[in-house]
């Protein structure tokens, strides 16, 4: 029993870590641009797909392959902002929110169609074997542990970037007061593009872990985007770190309910969301 609990906690934390990573990216983007990016889940799907393609071609460790994706997805997110999001920023308030939902949803559908056209609609997964770790009577998958380590390292790296660098501080300043940041000399438009780049890296990295742990199809993107929106609402809109907590809670809940009552795991997630919002209307850290 103890072994099962530990396994569930590991898989729950890993699953939660995947949620947290991608949701953190979405929270950064929303904080800086006030744009609800419904294409976020597509970048996760594409991250998974690209690492699958690279893995099939090389058979290298998929976690190492993910390092190649970092500059690629930074560029993709950066250009996505420049091309599709920047023109919307002339609009204000709810007009901006609605316009951003329409444009990013449109982009999502296009990405979904293109990927299923070129790479087919079937499920893809990477089954990469690594020697397991034996601890007493427990066997722990080392690729899962390594995945967790990667997630923690990435999160810490983004955290240090936000705290210690000029650009990172400017990013946080922009989320807190856009005009104030501009008046300090921050090019808030450039910060917007950089933030999309970083957010997209986080989504694609989550995609790498996703394709190792589960399988991907071209159709997972939009439902995932919606799940990430729920997570950042649960964490508190405008709170960057609330999304990490929200993601972890969701992942662990899903893993535990998924084991004991598989059909209820998705529902449990939404129960938790509603419960948290009833108790704390502004989210966990909002």
């Amino acid at each position, binding site marked *: 029993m103890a072994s099962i609990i530990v396994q569930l906690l590991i898989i729950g934390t890993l699953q939660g870590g995947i949620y947290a990573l991608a949701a953190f990216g979405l929270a950064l983007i929303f904080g800086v641009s006030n744009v609800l990016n419904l294409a976020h889940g597509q970048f996760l799907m594409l991250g998974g797909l690209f690492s699958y393609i690279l893995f099939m071609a090389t058979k290298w460790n998929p976690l190492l392959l993910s390092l190649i994706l970092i500059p690629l997805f930074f560029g993709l997110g950066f250009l996505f902002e420049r091309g599709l999001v920047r023109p919307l920023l002339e609009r204000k308030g709810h007009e901006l929110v609605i316009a951003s939902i329409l444009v990013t949803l449109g982009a999502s559908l296009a990405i979904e169609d293109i990927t299923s056209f070129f790479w087919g609609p079937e499920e893809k997964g990477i089954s990469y074997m690594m020697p397991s770790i034996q601890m007493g009577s427990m066997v722990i998958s080392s690729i899962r542990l390594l995945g967790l380590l990667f997630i923690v390292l990435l999160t810490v790296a983004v955290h240090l970037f936000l705290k210690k660098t000029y650009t990172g*501080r400017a990013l*946080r300043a922009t989320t*807190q*007061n856009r005009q104030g940041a*501009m*008046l*300090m000399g921050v090019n808030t438009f450039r910060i917007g593009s950089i933030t999309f780049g970083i957010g997209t890296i986080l989504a694609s990295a989550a995609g790498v872990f996703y394709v190792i742990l589960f399988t991907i199809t071209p159709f997972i993107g939009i439902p995932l985007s919606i799940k990430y929106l729920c997570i950042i609402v649960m964490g508190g809109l405008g709170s960057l770190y609330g999304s990490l907590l929200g993601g972890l809670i969701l992942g662990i809940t899903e893993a535990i309910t998924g084991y004991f009552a598989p059909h209820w795991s998705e529902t449990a997630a939404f129960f938790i969301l509603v419960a948290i919002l009833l108790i704390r209307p502004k989210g966990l850290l909002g």
Partner: protein
Amino acid sequence: MLQVQDVSVCYGDIQALFNLTLQVETGEIVTLLGSNGAGKTTTINTISGILHLRQGAILFDGKSIHQMTPFRIVEHGLIQIPEGRMLFPDMTVFENLQMGAYSIRARENRQETLDWVCHLFPRLMERFPQLAGTLSGGEQQMLAIARGLMSKPKLLMLDEPSLGLAPLLVAELFKIVSQINQHSVTILLVEQNAVQALETAHRGYVLENGKIILHGKSSDLIQNDHVRASYLGI
């Protein structure tokens, strides 16, 4: 140093500034007086590049700046301390000051600037690790000024810095404005607090309904009948 020439600004269809002309010479303190809704904030937001002008030109150090983005204008040393402070509430006092020194221009000798700022505002130094959003109103205003100074202004524009401060603090604030000016920073001071603004400034402009209706030496404006009736309550 700063020349605003025949500038008109609109919000949509509503015109807020009409053929506004003013100038600030190096080393001066100039005050821009006006009651609520006169167009003071509109004026300095236009100078800062936040708003776009419909007509006219703005020159700073001889260069035309009215086509520039706000962040480029900051790199030229033209800094605004905005109405409502616009601090970064979830960042510490120290991080807010670091953000002040964000521009490339301000990053050089930022330690010296910080020493000077701490000398002007010793209270802030004790509060470096505190979140800016948890400071008192007076402390927040001091932080806003300190953050602006960290940007190494050649010309500093302050938008109603005395708003919401207790009388004692207001007196201290105007003293600090003079001290900053003695440190060779030119100042454009937007105020409703006409008495103290005119005592501190060398010259003044009076703005009503988006038009400059009067300008001159502070000592002359204090004697002016219209100013006395409308702004000094005499």
